[in-house]
């Protein structure tokens, strides 16, 4: 009996997965044509904390993001996945206007955080960044004690009450699942913590400021599997309490930790839906080819 690829498109059925990547859409994208993003209806049913609206970004003459429109749901974890260079980190950094620091960056379109335009010229960027938390690939604790790291944002905001600071420190460290490990050495240097602990400290520091959205840029890529497991567990616990936007190149991490997943390719949003949908029954063959590891 001769075998045919199980996943070939069949007459009468929806487009199917790619045992041989059927990537017409990706070829169109590569040729610079616009393709509409496939956004599943459940995404639109959510209340957005952040709305990305026809957002384009150029580094000099090179366009890195093409007309991205996507709502980021409130109190849910949303993962951005896609091959290297697809623009997922650029998009994440655009949310707190870190790209402002890059010369030659030009943008059109807008993003709104709880309705407030992020790219409004009158927007105070420092105030804007206070409303978001950001955690980077490599843990970056400040060279000070664990305690001071966590309450840093409150201190620069002028909070002096010991009681308030103590309470926020404990709550944030508990929220970041780090309290039990560090409660007896809060005044030791944060640099003495392990990599995984440092990363959870950075998350504690971010949530201490009660951000409206927490941005995580490949937060586990510098961690060993055990530390990664702990951070992933923490992200799962943040579900329902914080709005999280996470960039990851690890698809299992996206599938384990997020409620929604967006697949990006060459600066475009290709498909966006519930994580379960994207990983069991993606609508587009291109998404299927990517999540099954057939390309990228």
């Amino acid at each position: 009996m001769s075998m045919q690829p199980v996943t070939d498109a069949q007459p009468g059925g929806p487009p199917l997965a790619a045992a041989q990547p059927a990537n017409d859409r990706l070829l169109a994208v590569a040729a610079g044509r616009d393709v509409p993003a496939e956004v599943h209806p459940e995404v639109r049913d959510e209340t957005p904390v952040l709305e990305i609206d026809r957002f384009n970004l150029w580094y000099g003459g090179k366009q890195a993001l093409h007309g991205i429109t996507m709502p980021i749901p409130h109190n849910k974890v949303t993962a951005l996945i896609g091959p290297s260079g697809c623009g997922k980190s650029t998009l994440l950094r655009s949310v707190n206007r870190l790209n402002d620091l890059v010369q030659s960056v030009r943008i059109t379109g807008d993003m709104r955080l709880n309705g407030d335009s992020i790219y409004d010229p009158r927007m105070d960027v420092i105030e804007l960044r206070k409303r978001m938390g950001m955690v980077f690939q490599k843990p970056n604790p400040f060279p000070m004690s664990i305690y001071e790291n966590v309450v840093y944002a409150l201190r620069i905001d002028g909070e002096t009450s010991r009681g308030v600071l103590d309470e926020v420190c404990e709550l944030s460290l508990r929220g970041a699942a780090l309290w039990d490990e560090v409660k007896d050495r809060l005044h030791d240097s944060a640099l003495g913590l392990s990599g995984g602990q440092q990363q959870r400290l950075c998350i504690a520091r971010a949530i201490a400021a009660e951000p409206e959205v927490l941005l995580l840029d490949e937060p586990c890529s510098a961690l060993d599997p055990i530390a990664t497991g702990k951070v992933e567990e923490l992200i799962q616990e943040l579900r329902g309490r914080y709005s999280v936007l996470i960039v990851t190149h690890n698809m299992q991490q996206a599938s384990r930790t997020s409620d929604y997943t967006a697949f990006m390719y060459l600066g475009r949003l290709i498909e966006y839906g519930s994580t379960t949908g994207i990983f069991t029954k993606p609508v587009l063959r291109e998404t299927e080819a990517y999540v099954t590891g057939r390309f990228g």
Partner: protein
Amino acid sequence: MTHHIERQIEHLKERILRVGTLVEEAISKSITALINRDMHLAQRVMANDEEIDRMEVEVEEECLKILALYQPVAADLRFVVSVLKINNDLERMGDLARNIAKRVAQLTAGEATDLPPEIRTMAMQAQDMVKECLDAVVKADPLLARQVREEDDAVDEARQKIRRRIIQGIKNDPENVENLLRINSVSKHIERIADMATNIAEDVIYMVQGDIVRHRNTD
């Protein structure tokens, strides 16, 4: 990694089709044995069931290995999960063929009893369904799978007709009740085989299109 999982999936396909071929043969031989009153053939079917059982376990182990080592998603995940279920149904079809063969052995030991005329057609319809559902697996063809689902009604009707004939037969000839009950069992087993083929067809639809159509009407 990618090439590995593709190879593993290809290998799994070959294995499940081997189980399918053995089961198809077992069913076909058990029916031939019934019609030709062939005791030897029936005994061979009974003996061969062990091979099907052994292969069923191997396929299941292979599926578990792929799930554990490769964490498949999307089409790959649907394929492995469908194979797990198809494998289970095939093994049960093998058991049903063995059960038919057992009844045939009992029927051929004594005096011949006429078979109800519907049983041949019913057996042919069920065998067609088995063949088509396996073709649907090979070709990943949801249209063929949907057709198999629709064919099940005809088999169910035939089974009811046979049942009524058997009841009448027992009334007319109470002496022959043992044999008539055996034929009744055979027709029930054939009906179950068609049901299992329908299950497999439904798994194919899930495998290819991601829709769970079980417990839904065919129309």
